[in-house]
């Protein structure tokens, strides 16, 4: 199942990456080479194998519901490229 240029475009949009036509062609070639290599796992019978998301036998980790000090508003905003009135500032999101 080789990736077409349209699929590369779609994946780039899903990943929120603007790509040039030149990059589209290059990524198509490189991603297909990697995916072709990854075909080796399709040969294995894994029908009775549970997936491993994470190697530890930890399920949920709880803590007591107590208030702890965190970042101040000023610290949280300290790296913002744009801010206003104590908030992150972004361009309009609705047309």
């Amino acid at each position, binding site marked *: *199942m080789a990736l077409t240029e349209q699929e590369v475009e779609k994946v780039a949009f899903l990943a929120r990456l603007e790509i040039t036509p030149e990059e589209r062609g290059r*990524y198509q070639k490189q991603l297909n080479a990697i995916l072709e290599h990854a075909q080796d796992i399709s040969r294995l019978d894994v029908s009775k194998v549970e997936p491993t998301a994470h190697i530890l036998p930890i399920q949920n980790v709880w803590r007591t519901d107590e208030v702890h000090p965190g970042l101040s508003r000023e610290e949280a905003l300290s790296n913002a490229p744009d801010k206003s009135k104590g908030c992150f500032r972004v361009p309009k999101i609705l047309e």
Partner: protein
Amino acid sequence: MSQTHELTLTQAAAKLQTKELSSVELTKAALSRIEAAEPKVHAFVTVDAEGALKAAAEADARRAKGETGALLGMPIALKDNLSTRGLRTTCSSKMLEPYVPPFDATVVAKLRGAGAVFLGKTNLDEFAMGSSTENSAFGVTHNPWDLDRVPGGSSGGSAAAAAAGFGFGALGSDTGGSIRQPASLCGIVGLKPTYGRVSRYGLVAFASSLDQIGPMARSVGDAAVLSQAIDGHDAMDSTSVDRAVPDYTAALSKGVKGLRIGLPKEYFVDGMDPEVAAAVKAAVKSLEAQGAVVKEVSLPHTEHCLSVYYLLATAEASSNLARFDGVRYGYRALAESLVPQTMKTRAQGFGPEVKRRIMLGTYALSSGYYDAYYKRAQQVRTLIAQDFAGAFAGVNVIATPTAPTPAFKIGEKADDPLTMYLSDIFTISVNLAGVPAISLPCGFSKTGLPIGLQLIGKAFDEATLFAAAAAYEGAHDWKDRRPKI
């Protein structure tokens, strides 16, 4: 007689303890070494001389009041994906070029508490994605043993710093070999701890089910001191494990008598670099001569590790790196509305390897391909973990080469991602299985390049790795060699 900057961390700690040297003197020695050789090596993204000298003076004051500790006043370096409060943390990416964290990573806070002096932040492949440190937005790091060659990656800056005498050790991070492979290529010691042994809080996430922070240093004992300081449970990382940390320094003298060492037949195959194969086999013989018992083991799913790794690590990366949207921190490109702004920000902020991996991971997770790629890779990961469990039923430690070749030339593999990925062929299985592994020097090629031995242990059995590595190291003089730069 070694120059001050060439001492091991253990030797330097002894001189601090006896007051033969102060922390300010040690720090000045490291900084003048950096000033002299850093232009050739380029191990650092940021050198913080002022902060280091201030911390050194504070450490000397603490010692004068009677405090002790191996790291009190010890100058070390930190990989630039570890958050340092008030000190720029770039991940070697244009995306985070201006980013100054408002908090410390847990490992950084622990080292600060122990009195360590931070010389600066070391170069890496952007967001730790790479095997050569060529993917940095701030220039390539050079291998101190041969400046035309890569230091390995992604913790190439930390490895080069430790090898070149820019401080007395460093921290790196390892997702598929990023501590061990550069340690091997730079002739130093590097440990990837058991998954869950070290808190990942404040490590900028690449692949959260695989990432671990670990020590990189000039001797096994040095690595043990750093591990002792950073290991242990942390409530800020829900994957950190609450389990007692043994005394690693005590483990160093345990020896290998009766230790069962497995050689996985899948890792010693025709066509491998003959000098690497010979050095690793000789190292295993040397451990056998000290009383270890060597037997062949099998890890039957080895051939699938690379595929599983590059599907799972990229899938996790595509999710983790979604946070870089130009809103809360880092680089922002300007556009009229939010989605185009996000797309331009990420297009301009990320380098090509990071984009390639985000796209691969996004594809592996996307509707219609999830079962064939992501879920199947997770299932094969189970088989790989079972391979290790099976092998460890009969042995205590598994020995392999760390990297398939000594350091390669800068630019040699830069245009072919798949060939570059093969640099990690012996290290990635360890991350998939979640077990610990150490790389240490076990010889040099005819051209003078270091070769690394990898010892893989059972989960939470770092102590045995330190014991075996120290036994090997003590019988050879590799750790006393220093690159001439």
